[in-house]
């Protein structure tokens, strides 16, 4: 009867409408049988999902979902949807909920809304395009130079590498604020409160386990219905990480050459057999291959009804694919020496890279960060519970002795 521990219900009709319109159109079909929670191989025993997430979403309880770490435990593998007797497709609904959660965690919040809404797409793409055009205008070479294609001639790598970290920093700040919101919802403490109090060894262990699990896609392995997604996603993830590393190494090579005049690491443009270049080529191929498989399979999933894709999903996927394919094409065209094609392609590549980067905290890209954080939190809590249990047992034993 007590009033204090009660959930005060105030359904958010707009939230419901948004979930319905973004891949979760089957949300209201759920009649709470709980089959989904039973078939889900990832649902934790003490807090199974997605049944309760389904009714929270049906009741428009946006706050509950924004801070629910379980939303991030789901990989939309589709096992629950395959077994759902009502066609409520909880997997797809959770995908739509994650989209709403990313929007809810967004800072500044208008960015969350802008990225989520297709009508702002021209502005989203226009901004990086204008930015690079502006750079071209003030520092680069406007027309396509004759002779061998050297992208550094069109736009200075160094300048690029100044702009790049600026936006990376902004994105990182937005992520930090989002993580703080997520953390506060999940644990009741902001990071500022939490970090001084945390058990560092436990956090290290939780981080290590979570990240190795993610890198190996161990949770994804447990999925049955859409198992193909594991390979494709693994390719994209490793491709992306490889390209990040490539970029970092390339900056090292460049800086060493330009400022320290050390050519031992190689000289721009790097030969195809240069280790950094090789890493880039292989990673780019993985990214393109993985994302292409995903695009194809999502199309098939849409037709068969096994996997719903929203604008939010597709935007991210096509940008990733675009980044990869334009990157590879730029390289090939550079080798062919067709400046007329090579320079515009490179331009598009840069626009897409910036699109990916600038909007990362608001696009589906954010799942890369929020999921990792949510899973670390979850693992941290689990390890704590295990330790407490072990402690209790030890205490009981000691008492018995």
């Amino acid at each position: 009867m007590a009033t204090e521990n009660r959930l005060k219900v105030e359904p958010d009709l707009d939230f419901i409408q948004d979930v319905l319109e973004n891949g979760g159109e089957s949300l209201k079909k759920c009649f709470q049988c709980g089959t989904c929670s039973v078939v889900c191989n990832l649902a934790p025993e003490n807090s199974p999902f997605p049944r309760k997430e389904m009714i929270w979403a049906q009741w428009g309880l946006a706050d509950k979902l924004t801070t629910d770490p379980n939303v991030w435990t789901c990989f939309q593998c589709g096992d629950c949807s395959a077994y759902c007797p009502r066609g409520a497709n909880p997997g797809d609904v959770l995908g739509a909920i994650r989209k709403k959660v990313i929007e809810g965690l967004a800072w500044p919040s208008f960015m969350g809304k802008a990225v989520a809404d297709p009508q702002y797409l021209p502005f989203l793409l226009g901004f990086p395009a204008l930015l690079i055009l502006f750079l071209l205008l003030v520092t680069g070479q406007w027309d396509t130079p004759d002779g061998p294609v050297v992208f550094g001639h069109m736009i200075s790598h160094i300048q690029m590498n100044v702009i790049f970290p600026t936006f990376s920093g902004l994105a990182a700040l937005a992520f930090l604020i989002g993580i703080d919101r997520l953390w506060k919802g999940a644990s009741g403490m902001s990071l500022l409160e939490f970090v001084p109090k945390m058990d560092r060894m436990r956090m290290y262990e939780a981080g290590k386990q979570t990240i190795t699990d993610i890198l190996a896609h161990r949770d994804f392995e447990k999925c049955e219905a859409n198992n193909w997604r594991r390979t494709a996603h693994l390719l994209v993830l490793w491709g992306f990480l490889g390209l990040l590393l490539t970029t970092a190494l390339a900056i090292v090579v460049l800086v060493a050459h330009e400022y320290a005049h050390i050519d031992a690491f190689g000289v721009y443009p790097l030969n195809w057999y240069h280790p950094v270049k090789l890493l880039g080529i292989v990673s780019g191929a993985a990214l393109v291959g993985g994302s292409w498989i995903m695009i194809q399979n999502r199309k098939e999933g849409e037709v068969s009804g096994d996997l719903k894709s929203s604008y939010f999903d597709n935007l991210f996927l096509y940008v990733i694919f675009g980044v990869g394919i334009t990157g590879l094409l730029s390289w090939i065209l550079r080798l062919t020496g067709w400046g007329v094609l090579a320079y515009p392609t490179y331009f598009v590549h840069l626009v897409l890279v910036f699109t990916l980067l600038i909007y990362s905290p608001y696009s589906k890209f954010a799942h890369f960060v929020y999921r990792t954080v949510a899973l670390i939190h979850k693992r941290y809590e689990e390890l704590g519970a295990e330790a407490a249990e072990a402690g209790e047992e030890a205490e009981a034993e000691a008492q018995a002795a």
Partner: protein
Amino acid sequence: MENKLAVYICTGYGIGEAIDVEAMKKVASSEFKADIVKEIGSCEDDDLKAIHKDIESEGITRLVIAGPTFRFYKRNEFPKTVLVDYANIREQVAWCQPAGEEDTQMMAEDYLRMAITKVKKMDYVEPFPDHDKINKDIMVVGGGMAGLTAALECAVTGYKVYLLEKEGQLGGMAARLYKSIPHEAPYQDLEDTGIEALIDAVSNNENITVYTGAVIKKIKGAPGMFDVTLESGENFIAGAIIQATGWVPADPDHLSHLGFKQIPDVVTSVKFEEMAKSGKIVRPSDGQPAASVLFVQNEGSPEPDQFSYSSSINSLNALKQALYVREKNPNGKAYVVYDHFKAPGHNELFYKSAQQDPGVFMTKGNVVSVEESGGKLKALVDDTLLGEDLEISVDMVVLGVGMVPIAADGEKIRIVIDAKATIAKGEEGAQMDMAKKNLEEYKKHEGTAILNLDYRQGPDLPSLTWGYPDSHFICFPYESRRTGIYPCGCVRSPMDLQGAQEDAMGAALKAIQCVEVTSRGEAVHPRAGDQSYPEFFLQRCTQCKRCTEECPFGVLNEDVKGTPLPNPTRCRRCGVCMGACPERIISFKDYSVDMVANMIKAVEVPDEYDEKPRVLLLACENDAYPALDQAGVLGISYSPFVRVIPVRCLGSVNIVWINEALSKGYDGIILMGCKHGDDYQCHFVKGSEMMVARSSNVREKLQQMALEDERVALHEIEITDYERVPQIINEFMETIEEIGMNPFKGM
């Protein structure tokens, strides 16, 4: 008329291989001196035609066919000039006993003896007198959806209808509804009730006479001749009655903890419906629109019975009213908290579609309190599907209320009348104490009468536990325990408008069946077409009133002395009166105490030293007898020492038959009837129960004769018990073997 007995022994269906047909023929010709004894190859097609030909050419008056079970033949297969019986030597001998055995042969011969004995005792069945003078008009009580539909259906079929409505205008509860749940594919959108059009159709139908503000003062008579007098003095005769008196909302006084009668903005679902109908869903307290409404469909009170009248209709109604909230306000929020949500049949589609509405929020849960808080209502809900206890803030709370049938319990009213009469006599003693106790217990029934029937057993239909008129609602919907009176609509069971319409059509057909069949002098139900009826040899009546008390259908009234006054059109021909009568003065032309007693005696009972016991099995012909036949069809064998006699109902078994059998030397008696009790299966409602009541007399008789209690066994059998029935017989035989033979053999 000259008596000419013909006996046909069928040799087909494996009978010829199982038994000695010549010996059978000898039984007919030498023991019973049959005029014609013939073999036939089968009992269908040309063989059957040959029998028909013989009947015509030979002038046969009594006919016995030894072959398949009587259930094999059409009713009235043979002309009325011939008295017929069938010895069941196919299903119950040839198909369930080893061929060529002595015991098999004895069994077949005994069945032939019993059939010939029966046919010799039978008399020609004539319909009851004046059957052709019955009235075929139909009275409908109640002018709601069911009553209007029933009246219109009868009227368009060509029957004159009297429609009675107690209110000043037609329409009943249906006229108070804003909309109806969907009844047409795809079962998604709320529909108009259609009641106005129906009222118009009824009002403009010249076959229908409408009485509004009508109260029944008295209904005398019986089906085909109900003599109805209204309080207003009007009087008419009707042949059958349809009771469509509908329902009232249960009083949710027990929901005061949810604010009922305490908080103005807490209303019943019926009140909410009226608000929707008036076009304004507003808070009664301040007249402001109710944008968020909580519909309570749950228990949450310590009273266990409070939702006794809850049903799927309550669930669907809550869904419908939730959509009203959404219809009136696009930002409206409707919460439905339920304990059990029931949306049977195609209503599942309505549930699915209503669930799609983003503003409808449903959860199982328990609303524990409602209180006013800051101009709104704060409802606390426990045990929800959201995994937490909730606090919901709403403008209004709607309590789903159960549907209580508007019916009177005739039997209870009669108890009150009798108790008052006893008390008025003023004689002290046990009877007086009983009367006072009864009056205390049943006083609330006084003055509740609706039909005011002039029936000895009470002025209204007998009721079931929750006040619904008693009927076997699965097998025999619309039936009641009063022939010619058919309840339909919500008085019979909670139902929606479409359900009420369908129900009304069923009841209309029953009423029409009643007047038509009665006008031919036949029984209506369940022995439809049976023209026999019980006749009373009143010179020997001792006015013991057992027949008038025990008749499950209130057929018999009494004169002042207690002599039964028969009403053949109320009768269902079960024979319970015949079984009850200690003087054995009640008989049918084709079914009597004497006839069955003679059949029992016709069996040859071997003496003690033959070690061939005999057991009499009296089997209800509705379930037990077909189960025995089916055992034969499946070739399941059982003891050959059993002799089966079908009875109309176990309630028609007169104790005399048991006495006769024991005196004759039968070693035991098995009685097989239908399940009785609250969930009875008996076609005649009380028949098998009556037999149980009488069995104390049987036990007494056994004691008198110094016989073991186990010699008489009573079993409840369903038609599907064909595997159990042979087991019961065999186990009984083992019991007999243990306790030994009946010492009265050969006496």
